[in-house]
């Protein structure tokens, strides 16, 4: 038995890769969908905050990511934008990351088409602007100075839904979907703490532990962390078979496989140590 456990402990890494790949491929091919209960989590806090916004509220959504983090952040973007549209909010999109502008356009136009929302009346995309935190400070004094035109070069003054927007304080909420820097931290520092606008956000799972500290201090109203956060929001908004919800089954199975190998590795390590072999 000890010999078998030792052999398992020395499993070729490529076998582990194959098992992880299978643990992802099989649930996708079987179209497995696991229940995704949403408890009292930061994702529910964000959902409830958005849900409580009065109709016609101006909400700024900053798409601060690029295609490398799309699997986590694009489902979040679609779910958040869908919720805002359902609440009849005026959704203004922008991006601190260059490719975020196009990804935001995809999310907003896709959801607008399915929910009957009209560009420039219910939503618009201001596009990308460089500068990160410094640019956010400028938004605090004048939005139109930073974005004289939208992403498609339509002048600010010709966009009806922007008529009552002057600066950051015109917004009831800012939501940053962030894959790193500049992103949520810049918005919390400049938009939240400096101009007093409530900040919500979604981020990759890698950066979630760093950002949880802003929730406890009340610097953020809610947060979606990684694919689980995206799946939570899809569930809360009522998106059937969303991409993130479908992703949770392979995620869960792969986690089980990883946990199994962690246990095997530890048992093999301690067995070898007992025999005096491990260093």
């Amino acid at each position: 038995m000890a010999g078998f456990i030792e052999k398992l402990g020395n499993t070729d890494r490529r076998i582990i890769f194959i098992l992880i790949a299978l643990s992802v491929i099989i649930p996708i091919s079987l179209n497995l969908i696991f229940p995704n209960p949403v408890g009292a989590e930061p994702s529910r806090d964000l959902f409830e905050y958005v849900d409580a916004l009065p109709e016609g509220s101006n909400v700024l959504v900053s798409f601060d990511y690029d295609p490398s983090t799309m699997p986590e952040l694009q489902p979040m973007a679609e779910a958040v934008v869908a919720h805002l549209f359902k609440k009849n909010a005026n959704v203004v999109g922008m991006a601190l990351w260059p490719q975020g502008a196009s990804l935001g356009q995809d999310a907003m136009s896709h959801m607008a088409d399915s929910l009957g929302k009209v560009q420039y009346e219910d939503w618009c995309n201001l596009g990308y602007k460089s500068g990160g935190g410094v640019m956010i400070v400028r938004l605090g004094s004048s939005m139109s100075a930073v974005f004289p035109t939208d992403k498609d070069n339509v002048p600010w003054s010709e966009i009806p839904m922007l008529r009552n927007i002057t600066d950051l304080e015109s917004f009831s909420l800012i939501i940053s979907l962030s894959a790193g820097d500049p992103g949520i931290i810049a918005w919390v520092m400049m938009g939240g703490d400096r101009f007093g606008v409530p900040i919500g956000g979604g981020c990759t799972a890698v950066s979630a532990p760093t950002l949880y500290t802003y929730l406890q201090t009340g610097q953020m109203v809610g947060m979606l962390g990684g694919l689980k956060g995206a799946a939570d929001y899809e569930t809360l908004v009522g998106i059937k078979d969303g991409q993130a919800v479908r992703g949770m089954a392979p995620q869960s199975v792969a986690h089980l496989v990883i946990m199994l190998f962690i246990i095997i590795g530890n048992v093999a390590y301690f067995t070898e140590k007992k025999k005096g072999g491990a260093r």
Partner: protein
Amino acid sequence: MNWEILGVWLGALVTFCLYSFLYRDNPFYKFAEHLFVGMSAGYWVIYNIENVLIPNWWQNMVPPEGGFNWIWIIPGIFALFMLARMVPKTAGLSRLALGMIIGAGAGLNMVSFFQTNAMAQVKGTIISVATGSAWDIFSSLVLVVGVVSGLVYFFFSKAHTGVVGKTANVGITILMIAFGASFGYTIMARLSLLIGRCQFLMEDWLPTIPQLLGIGG
């Protein structure tokens, strides 16, 4: 030719090339890696010219409605200073541009960063441990014990023996739990990327095979 299908196939082939590294280093992986680096560099140059330089600088200096704002020559000169690093004799000029960037960044961030990441966080740990439900009280106690013992672990002016040593041990345990949670989140993030690729291969790429062979919708 259906460009959409071509794009999907290129994406799938490059994905396979990159994942082939999991077996061992090979020419397919090297090809995909170099393709990625080269295309990224080219893409970023054009993207920055189109989306940063032209709208933020050129159109301010030479507005589409006519005229010429000479003041915008100054940031253009500073931008050229950045490139001066490539010529050893003029490399010193780049310090002027860098100094301006670092000075502006430091000035803007100093107060905001301290307020957001130090003051507000310290304030967040000064809480009443005797209010709310039993779970709230427990959470508050974990927070207080975690912060204090974590700080003790990093206090090196006193030997970690006796009470200090035991408190430091609690601190390192709390830190390890935090690192474990962080590592778990990292695994979740990497798996999400794998799931994204697998969803692309199985839901976008696979259905194109019967389409190309003319045996399906």
